[in-house]
């Protein structure tokens, strides 16, 4: 930095001395910078001016309406799946929300399973078992290198579409059914006292935090180590089950039932959602597996050796030394993978899953012709969702970051 400056000064001095004339004003770096920027402003200004005037002229010529008035108009079409009540007479505004919720649903499912797959196969890369290591490599190299769209189609057209019809459904214990129309699982319908179990679950989750603090304090004071992890799991499962037993099992299970040509009741997962969620999870999972591998590999062998020579057990080396350091590398990569997953969920349009992009940029745009408004609204949503992901992952990153190396 310093060196550059002195160099610049000598040069300037040399220039001044040459012939004794003052340098031309257009050679002054600051004026030049101003000039370049002015040029860019003018260029951009002209660009936007011509685009906007073209757009206005074009829209007038074709008679397309402008503005967001259409949001309160009745849409007149139904969607395949909705998390909130929806009828064909509802508005475009409501359809926007339906699509948004469906996007969030498939993204959350995808992120969850992609993370699970990614961590399993990423860690499998370091297995002592040769076969498992090779399986991990196969998984990553196969699914990373095939376009996502092909994988979506593969699951939808080549796998799920070839499942048997409703009458010949594959079933698991006469409770879960899988056929060409989707996956049908039983639903728990709570009655009067069901809230007790819900409260118990909430208490258990809150209890984990209390337990962790208590265990940490006790260890600091007495040195004794409390098995927080296993106790937490026992609590989350045990408390609600105990509550259910004590209140006399206040719920009924609604099983899917075959009526006519299809199953009714329970929870239905449509094949479009399944295909998209599977493809997103498997595809993104292969990238996350690579990120996990890179994270673990970034830790020098000496770290493990030093921890071993202190007498730490392999389990503690993992949780105290390896994971905190690997997460530093993994979390930023996870951030961008999660964002890609959300963006890639727009492939729903290819198989007709009613996500935001499909119902809005697909159908609504087609019906209203208002390309600019619909695309703009949709893009803004994706930006916001990705900003939220980025924010959360940065929080996580700060939690695992080092002050310095």
């Amino acid at each position, binding site marked *: 930095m310093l060196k550059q400056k002195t160099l610049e000064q000598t040069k300037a001095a040399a220039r001044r001395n040459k012939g004794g004339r003052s340098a031309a004003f257009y050679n002054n770096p600051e004026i030049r910078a101003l000039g370049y*920027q002015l040029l860019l402003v003018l260029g951009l200004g002209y660009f936007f001016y011509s685009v906007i005037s073209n757009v206005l002229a074009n829209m007038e010529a074709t008679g397309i309406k402008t503005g967001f008035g259409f949001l309160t108009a009745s849409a007149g079409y139904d969607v395949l799946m909705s998390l909130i009540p929806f009828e064909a007479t509802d508005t475009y505004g409501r359809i926007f929300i339906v699509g948004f919720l469906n996007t969030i649903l498939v993204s959350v499912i995808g992120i969850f399973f992609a993370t699970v797959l990614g961590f399993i196969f990423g860690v499998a890369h370091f297995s002592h078992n040769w*076969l498992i290591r090779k399986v991990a490599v196969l998984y990553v190299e196969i699914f990373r290198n095939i376009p996502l769209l092909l994988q979506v*189609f593969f699951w939808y057209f080549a796998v799920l579409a070839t499942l048997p019809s409703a009458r010949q459904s594959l079933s698991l214990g006469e409770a879960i059914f899988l056929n060409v129309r989707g996956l049908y699982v039983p639903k728990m319908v709570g009655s009067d006292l069901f809230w007790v179990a819900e409260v118990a679950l909430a208490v258990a989750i809150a209890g984990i935090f209390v337990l962790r603090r208590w265990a940490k304090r006790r260890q600091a004071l007495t040195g004794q180590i409390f098995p927080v992890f296993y106790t937490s799991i026992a609590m989350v499962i045990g408390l609600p089950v105990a509550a259910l037993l004590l209140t006399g099992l206040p719920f009924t299970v609604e099983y899917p039932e075959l009526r006519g040509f299809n199953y009714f009741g329970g929870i239905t997962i449509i094949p479009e959602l399944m295909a998209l969620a599977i493809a997103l999870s498997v595809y993104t999972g292969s990238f996350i597996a690579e990120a996990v591998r890179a994270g673990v590999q970034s830790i020098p062998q000496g770290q493990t050796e030093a921890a071993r020579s202190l007498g730490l057990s392999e389990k503690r080396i993992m949780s105290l030394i390896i994971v905190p350091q690997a997460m530093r590398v993994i979390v930023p990569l996870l951030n961008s993978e999660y964002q890609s997953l959300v*963006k890639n969920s727009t492939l729903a349009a290819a198989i007709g899953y009613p996500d935001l*992009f499909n119902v809005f940029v697909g159908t609504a745009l087609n019906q209203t012709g208002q390309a600019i408004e619909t695309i703009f609204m949709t*893009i803004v949503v*994706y930006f916001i969702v990705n900003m939220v992901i980025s924010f959360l992952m940065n929080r996580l990153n700060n939690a695992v970051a080092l002050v310095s190396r």
Partner: protein
Amino acid sequence: MREFQPVPARPAPVKTVGPVAWARANLFSSIPNSMMTLFVMALFVYFIPPIVDWAFLSANWTGTTEDACVRDGACWVFVKAWSYQFFYGTYPEEEVWRINLMLGLLVLVIAASFTLPKHIRLKASVAAWLLLPLVGIAVLDGRLLGLNQVTTDLWGGFTLNVFMAAASIIVAFPFSFLWALGRRSEMPFIRSVSIIFIEFFRGVPVLSLFFMGSVMLPLFFAEGTNVDKLIRVWIVLIFFMSGYMAEVFRGGFQAVPSGQYEAADSIGLSYWQKILLIILPQVIKVSMPNILATFVMLFKNTTFLLIIGIPEVVQTLQTALSNSYWLGGHALEGYLFVFLVFWSSCFSMSLLARRIERQMNTDKRG
């Protein structure tokens, strides 16, 4: 004084070397490990024979129509019958030499940028690369060269994926450089514009860009101008690519040691001389693995073109699958074939990227 007599090396005890010891250490080192090994082996034994049987042993290889598929294995006849369309779309058969010519030229230019003599390599290959898309349009369309015109709605198949990806990255190259320079610039306005541009094109779903290209861009042009849909999508892909590549180059700029800039300054080069002659070649070199990775992403993303109705390879496959002469359900064969085509190209590019990276790492050490 004594002479040191080394104890001769003995071979390792049998129980620690050889295939049995290897299997013991790598497959059966503990009970959970052995169970896992047996489980994976069981999966292989269960699934692989039927798959091999379906795909090879009882597959149908010969014939030209669906009726030829009489055995219960895969119907590769389907893939064979449609292979022309899968590769060339609906491009007229008597003109297909033009596509092959362009593929040849593409390979030639790639080869030239690695093998030309050093003193003309950079200039010659940059010129060749930048000319390539123009030559490609002229040859494939044909009008400029006095050939029969082949309209763009006839272009399709896997070669369209290849050409779209290649043409986009080539044109995106110079732009992304400018964006990366802009983002590093000390001029506040130029920097902000660059950041907004880069983050916009990296932040939105590609599909929405394609929709912009197909339904929004026509509104941007003056009334009466009719720009071909493929060209509109090409423009969009160029923007998309330059957003991503700008970030790749930014990384590349950061990897070039600051001593290089200082050295360039000290021999009195102007800003552009410094950037183009000294910095740029180094940036390209260190960015090569990431450029390849970005290209693989773009290449995979060209399949998304199907959604706006452009007959790239997956769209062609969908058409074939719904053809009324081929309704016997050949989805599996079709997808496996296209899988294989994409997988082999993407996998070889990522192998190449890894090799370049390893080479660079050893260069640095040496």
